[in-house]
């Protein structure tokens, strides 16, 4: 029996084929899960908060918990002035969280396993940092690259490193999310594939399949953790980068 192809799960399939000129803008399985994530995330928050109770129930409490969690993350990183970006950070967190968790359901497509998606979100964040940083601080924004108290001799070197680290931010931000999700899903598929293949070999195969089965269960738990953690990492890094735009002087 052939081992299931671990790459197959990342294939994009057209659901409604659309073309704008020569550009393919079809509604795909990826788009479907983006829309589902938005509907599900917003639906949860809207329904949970619809009764506006003073003493919250279970659902309202969990919605408030998510809200306060993201709000505290942003406030502790970027200060109270950073709270103007709360809708964006909350949207990013919720979107990535929902999309990642949807990806954990078997046969569901994982939107963040495609670099274009994570890159687009990263460029949005870094673009906002640059635009808002320049709008708020003018040329003072570039003091971000000039740390205080560095001797003049090595200053050009330090500035070079600072610029390099700033430029690498959108790359690391997008690759981190993309690679974590991609690698996790491939690993999961491979180990789950072992179970199926070994199970088809008879009783000795069943015994041998126990180990990959345990690993698959453990990896599933780990991947759920990674799905939540990566959403949090993206949100907190966004907060830290926005803090640089608000307070460029170190």
């Amino acid at each position, binding site marked *: 029996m052939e081992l299931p192809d671990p*790459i197959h799960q990342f294939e994009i399939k057209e659901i409604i084929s659309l073309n704008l000129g020569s550009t393919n*803008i079809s509604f795909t399985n*990826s788009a479907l899960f983006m829309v589902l994530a938005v509907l599900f995330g917003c639906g949860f928050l809207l329904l949970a908060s619809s009764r506006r109770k003073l003493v919250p129930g279970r659902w309202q409490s969990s919605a*408030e918990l998510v809200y306060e969690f993201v709000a505290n993350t942003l406030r502790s990183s970027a200060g109270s002035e950073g709270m103007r970006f709360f809708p964006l950070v909350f949207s990013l967190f919720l979107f990535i969280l929902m999309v990642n968790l949807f990806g954990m359901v078997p046969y569901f497509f994982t939107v963040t396993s495609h670099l274009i998606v994570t890159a687009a979100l990263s460029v949005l964040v870094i673009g906002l940092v640059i635009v808002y940083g320049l709008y708020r601080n003018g040329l003072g924004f570039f003091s971000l690259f000039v740390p205080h108290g560095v001797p003049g001799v090595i200053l050009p070197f330090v500035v070079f490193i600072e610029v390099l680290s700033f430029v690498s931010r959108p790359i690391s931000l997008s690759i981190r999310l993309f690679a974590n999700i991609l690698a996790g899903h491939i690993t999961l598929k491979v180990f789950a594939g072992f179970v199926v293949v070994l199970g088809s070999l008879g009783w000795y195969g069943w015994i041998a399949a126990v180990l990959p089965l345990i690993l698959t269960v453990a990896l599933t738990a780990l991947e759920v953790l990674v799905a939540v953690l990566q959403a949090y990492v993206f949100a907190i890094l966004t907060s830290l980068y926005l803090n640089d735009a608000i307070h460029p002087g170190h």
Partner: protein
Amino acid sequence: MEGTATAGFIVAQLEATPAAPAAEDATPPADAAHGELAGVVIEEHATEDHGGTFPPFDSTYFASQFLWLAISFVVLYLLMSRVIIPRIGGILEDRRDRIARDLDQAGRLKQQSEEANAAYAKALSDARANAFRIAAEARDKAKAEAAARQAEIEKNLDGKLAAAEERIAEIKAKALADVGAIAADAADAVVERLVGLKASPSELSDAVTAARSGGAGNA
């Protein structure tokens, strides 16, 4: 033996499977840099049932993914900033206000109860002081009355004592006066018996008086 051999075969096959697309991965980033020409090549590959490109690097659906990401994310952002965040933020704000208000009221009530307690304690101590005062007054009054009565009784008794002493003195004086007459009578009888003469009363009384004064002088 057979089992381990099979497992070995699977591992070998497994290693081969992800390695195959990984080897082809090297091309797409370069393709993306090259632009349209490379895009056409990739599209040809993509049509062959993913045989060509690793799906995440297949640029065929980059535009579609970007567009639908933009649409869904903008909808999400608008819902967040217009509806969800104001609503949940409002709930939390209301709760904070309510808690602050309740704490405020609790503090006020506590202060009130403390005031009431202090007032009660003061009333209690006042009442106690009052009671002491009244008791002291009553005691003083009773003492004064008793003293007055005692004084009155003493005065009464003194009066009676004085009257009694007066009478005693009177009786004594009378008795003393009678002593002369009795002595004269006795002397008369004695004289008549011894001498057989009848002495005149004036002589008798003179003699008694002389005897008494002599006696008195002797005493």
